């Protein structure tokens, strides 16, 4: 069966303004809104579109983390994923561990494609997809803004510093989703009901032969340096005079 694996990370919602705990031991996450990582919604949307074009038969969503991740997997199922795998663990999951787990799942499920968000908006690592591709020994097309599946190859347009780059890759492969790949669909109420009946498998990392390791240990958290509030000028002339004074224009 032609299958696509999509990763769904549970993260603090992008609208939440995160604050560092006063004692520097972490950030305040109590009671804040949690969501599917925005890039993962885009990844899932792309997988669903590929399936709807008849180029894949099944979309499997995976999330790694504590019990609460099932909320985000239910959202993924409501969006249209066929089934979900929850790798349940309370351990700290670095990108290296996430990639090792996803590699095992990619092999277990014999997937044609793994679509991963380009970046998790909590740790901002931007590593997991590339690491998965390396461990799997398969191509990677990161920061994708357009994907075209042609048989056992794909043509992927990537957002790079210079502009847009196009790569041709052999499948199976890893694609990481950038913001402009698509606009994810909204979940409708009946879909949420239907999603409750879709299969959600829970396993622990050991079942996939992986032990989570923490190699970059958090020592402390600091708030970012604050910029001091500047001045409001009343008109363009005043602005130009001020900037001239500093030699900026």
């Amino acid at each position, binding site marked *: 069966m032609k299958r696509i694996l999509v990763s769904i990370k549970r993260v603090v919602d992008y609208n939440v303004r995160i604050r560092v705990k006063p004692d520097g031991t972490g950030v305040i996450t109590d009671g804040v809104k949690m969501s599917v990582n925005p890039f993962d919604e885009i990844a899932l949307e792309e997988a669903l579109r590929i399936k709807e074009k008849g180029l894949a038969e099944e979309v499997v969503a995976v999330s790694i983390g504590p019990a609460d991740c099932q909320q985000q997997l239910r959202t993924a199922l409501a969006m249209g994923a066929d089934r979900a795998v929850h790798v349940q663990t309370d351990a700290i999951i670095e990108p290296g561990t996430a990639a090792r787990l996803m590699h095992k799942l990619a092999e277990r499920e014999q997937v044609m494609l793994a679509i991963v968000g380009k970046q998790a908006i909590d740790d901002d690592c931007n590593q997991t997809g590339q690491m998965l591709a390396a461990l799997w020994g398969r191509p990677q097309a990161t920061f994708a803004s357009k994907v075209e599946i042609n048989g056992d190859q794909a043509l992927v347009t990537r957002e790079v510093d210079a*502009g847009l780059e196009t790569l041709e890759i052999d499948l199976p492969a890893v694609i990481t989703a950038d913001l402009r790949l698509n606009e994810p669909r909204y979940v409708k109420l009946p879909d949420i009901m239907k999603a409750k009946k879709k299969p959600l498998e829970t396993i622990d990392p050991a079942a996939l032969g992986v032990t989570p390791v923490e190699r970059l240990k958090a020592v402390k958290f600091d*708030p970012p340096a604050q910029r001091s509030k*500047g001045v409001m000028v009343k008109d363009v002339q005043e602005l130009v005079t001020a900037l001239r004074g500093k030699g900026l224009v």
Partner: protein
Amino acid sequence: MSKILIVAEHAGGKLNPVIAKCVHCATGIAGAEIHLAVFAADAAAVAAQAAQIAGVTKVVTVTHAVHANPLAATVAPQLAELAQGYSHIFGPSTTFGKDLMPRVAALLDAPQASDIMAAESATRFKRPIYAGNAIITVEVEAGTRVVATVRTASFEAAGAAASPAPIEAVSLSAALPTHTRFVSVTSARSDRPDLQTAKKVVSGGRALASTDNFKILYSLADKMGAAVGASRAAVDAGYAANDMQVGQTGKIIAPDIYLACGISGAIQHLTGIKDARTIVAINKDPEAPIFEVADYGLVGDLFQVVPEFEKLISSDS
């Protein structure tokens, strides 16, 4: 002792200027020996530029026809092989570095620290998380090989060397995969300064409302000798090219002056401009969050303010 290998990104025969910033970052590790690696179809010109950076003690070149367009899939196995003799492998936080370095880290079974703002020692690094709303200090066990990408906006460029470092060509045995093939790259070329390294940047948001309206920013930028940037909303709407996006998922920049026109100042945007020396904001909404970080704020309609600003800076006095 630490030995640091930095990937010397280049294009069109020119070393990317951010590499000198990566070298500066590496000098944070006391007593480290710093080498640069050039992967190219013809490495001579780039290697010569790399050898001129103060602090670099050797430039290693890896020449292969496939590196005419260096791809993560083909550079990674060679870099991983070369990395055996090093304790740290650094690359810039450009799209090239972000694509390549994790692939290398996985091949080496090494942890990666992304977007480092400081290498405080061989084992301790600072990096932003949550779109820059928190800075985390992370530590690896002594003796762990570390891969990192460098948030170049956090560093000044290293200076010029008194005498150039030696250049050494190496040949490697790693097999290069053929499963990933370069097809093309298209860029909206312009004669304006490069956004990532420009001293002056004029930037526009959703308020510009069309591609055509962006011309008022191009005109001002040309007068100032500035690069032009954009918010995500402006890029998504098609008013500006994707490579102009500034922010969490676009370019992180540190110009002397950043002129934000019709940009509200979402956290994802602000994280890209935090290191600008002077931020100027023009917005018709006095409550816009951009004013909280602006050194100079002007409440007004950008379609009046920008042309008037251009006229005033063009006149002498």
